């Protein structure tokens, strides 16, 4: 069991090792993808194994696994796999064009594997202090990815990211300290190390005042990592400036890891303080995030920024779902996490494809995607509908569940407000993406290299497998979303129920 957990966490490091040994983009990428495949397999095995057994704890509480951890492990590993396969195509294209040097490519794969491994490890620990250490370390690893292209805008984004995130996570560490203070009335055996299961089990004995403060600090602190407003200011810049597969990882995996940390704190707080205080805090931050994200989505500009704001919006929805609480709320939150992860990964990988072909990140510069590149265009269209919550994709079901939870928990105003905001988001987002997908494609010119009028449409993928690698994650992701929208497998249903019961 423990060996499986370690394998799941360490899997993505194969890509790092390969890159460290000097492999080129394709080789390092494929080895990374293979490692991610191992992680996914291990996580599915753990998921099935954990379903009806009590949680596993090892190494004095440093390793801890219950259904919730397994669920997030699976989500993050799946995203890692999609992003790893997409990395092969994107990085190979960039390297061949010459926009990234070999050194940068090596750096990318080293830090990519490190980033994934640290996130997976963070999901497997039961010690809240170690959770902070690993999340901060993953922030640092991903900062290298954000600043990789070393333009002034990416350095600026990387600086903002690293300083705001580090500050936020340090606030979360202060929250963890206060959580430990609230537990100081308990008499501890010297080797017990205040792990999450211990605190959760002894929740009634915690001091309420400092627990309140601890929860607030944790939401503000880890909320910075998650992208809840008003701590989200780093998010659009970082997600827009990173290379697209890295953006997919940031948006779909790192945000979820932060949300996992918040859920751990939520469980303890709800056990001691009941529903009122956590609900107020989470609903406030959640709705604030959705409102701000929707307002910023109305601008046309960089389409990766649009996707980033959509991530802020969805994290806000998940926070709102957690705030609503109850069985429906928690179920909806977890389902939304999984669906959003896959959908956002698809979107960002598509954007990588588009960026490589059109050589621009402005939405105004991209037209006629459906006619020029059918796979990417279709993926973008379907992906944007998916992420906006239209049936038959999975997000529709999860958002419906959340709205139902809202009606059950707190009357009619808040869910209706949520629906209204989602509608505005739909209009804003779809306006940009349909503009990108329709229209006529620019003519593919080989002679002109200037960007007057429209950028030349290049064929960036040399080698058959690279092109396949570009398209596969998109197709797989969309299919998965479709399946999740139409039918939730009984296994998944049981897993989610089990995880929700943990909270």
């Amino acid at each position: 069991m423990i060996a499986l957990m370690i394998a799941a966490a360490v899997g993505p490091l194969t890509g790092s090792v390969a890159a460290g040994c000097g492999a080129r983009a394709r080789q390092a990428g494929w080895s990374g993808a293979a490692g991610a495949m191992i992680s996914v397999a291990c996580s599915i095995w753990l998921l099935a194994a954990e379903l009806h057994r009590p949680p596993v704890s090892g190494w004095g509480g440093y390793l801890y696994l219950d259904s919730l951890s397994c669920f997030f492990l699976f989500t993050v590993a799946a995203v890692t796999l999609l992003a790893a396969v997409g990395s092969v195509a994107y990085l190979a294209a960039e390297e061949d064009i010459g926009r990234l040097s070999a050194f940068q490519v090596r750096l990318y794969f080293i830090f990519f594997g490190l980033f994934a491994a640290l996130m997976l490890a963070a999901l497997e620990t039961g010690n809240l202090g170690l959770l902070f250490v690993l999340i901060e370390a993953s922030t640092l690893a991903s900062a290298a990815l954000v600043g990789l292209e070393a333009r002034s805008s990416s350095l600026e984004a990387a600086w903002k990211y690293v300083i705001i995130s580090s500050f936020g996570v340090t606030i979360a560490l202060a929250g963890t300290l206060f959580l430990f203070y609230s537990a100081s009335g308990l008499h501890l055996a010297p080797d017990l190390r205040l792990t999450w299961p211990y605190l959760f089990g002894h929740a009634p004995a915690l001091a309420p005042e400092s627990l309140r403060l601890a929860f607030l600090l944790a939401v503000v602190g880890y909320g910075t990592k998650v992208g809840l407003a008003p701590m989200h200011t780093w998010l659009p810049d970082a997600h827009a400036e990173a290379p697209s597969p890295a953006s997919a990882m940031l948006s779909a995996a790192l945000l979820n890891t932060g949300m996992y940390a918040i859920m751990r704190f939520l469980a303890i707080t709800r056990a001691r303080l009941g529903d009122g205080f956590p609900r107020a805090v989470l609903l406030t931050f959640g709705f604030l995030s959705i409102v701000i994200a929707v307002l910023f989505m109305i601008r046309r500009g960089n389409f990766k920024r649009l996707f980033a704001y959509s991530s802020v919006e969805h994290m806000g929805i998940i926070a709102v779902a957690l705030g609503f609480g109850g069985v429906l709320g928690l179920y909806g939150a977890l389902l939304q996490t999984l669906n959003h992860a896959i959908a956002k990964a698809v979107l960002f990988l598509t954007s990588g494809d588009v960026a490589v072909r059109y050589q621009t990140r402005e939405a105004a510069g991209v037209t006629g995607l459906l006619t020029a590149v059918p796979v990417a265009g279709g993926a973008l269209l379907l992906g944007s509908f998916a992420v906006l919550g239209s049936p038959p994709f999975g997000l529709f079901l999860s958002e419906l569940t959340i709205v139902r939870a809202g009606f059950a928990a707190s009357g009619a105003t808040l869910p209706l407000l949520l629906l209204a905001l989602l509608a505005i988001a739909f209009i804003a987002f779809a306006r940009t993406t349909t503009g990108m997908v329709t229209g006529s494609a620019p003519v593919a010119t080989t002679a002109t290299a200037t960007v007057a009028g429209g950028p030349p449409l290049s064929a960036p993928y040399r080698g058959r497998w690279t092109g396949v690698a570009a398209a596969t994650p998109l197709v797989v992701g969309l299919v998965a979303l479709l399946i999740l929208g139409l039918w939730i497998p009984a296994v998944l249903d049981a897993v989610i129920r089990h995880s929700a019961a943990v909270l």
Partner: protein
Amino acid sequence: MQSLSATSAAGVLLDLSGVLILLLAFACLGSKLFNRYVAYYGAQSVVLAFAAGVAAQAFHSAELWILAVATLAIKGIGIPLSARRLLVQRLDLKRDAALSTGLSTSLIAGGALTAFAYLVTRPQLLPHGVVAAAVVPLSTAVILLGGLAMVVRRHTVAQLIGWLIVENGVFLGAITLVATFPFIVEAGIFLDIVAGVLIMLVFVSGLTRQLASASASELKELQG
């Protein structure tokens, strides 16, 4: 958890160290010259190492001794020296008058944040039995002051040192939980800080190469 009474020698020394760390945070907030700013941070880390040593002595904890020495070496001496070398020699920067608000305004805001921190972490808030309960409001105040320093300063390295002041505050608070913060976590936090500083310094070097300055007020390209 053991507790130190306020009148024992160790308790008095911890209280004094805490107040001195708070005052040095104010000094950092109110200094205009870069050399002084970095020097005050170094002094603060030295006092922090001293406080860790006092706690290690009181609780006979070898782990805390190691952490105290590491704090002294890395945060008290290493980081200030390398920051000064980076700033003065490479960036040729001695004075950083770039503040978003005036000096007096930031000091008053710092005073208000200190009062707020004391209010929020009233001693009644903490259950009995916590070591040197007076240190907790002080560490919270230092965290808030470090955050203010990050927000007010306009130079990237100054923001970085602001973050390090926040970490100092957290470490001060963590000393009081010596029984339950295992060594691996503390060491992990330490490594995080070191790695963070290294990465940030790399970015600052990149920024200076790109923008010919590392002032964060130049970072206005990404908006909206």
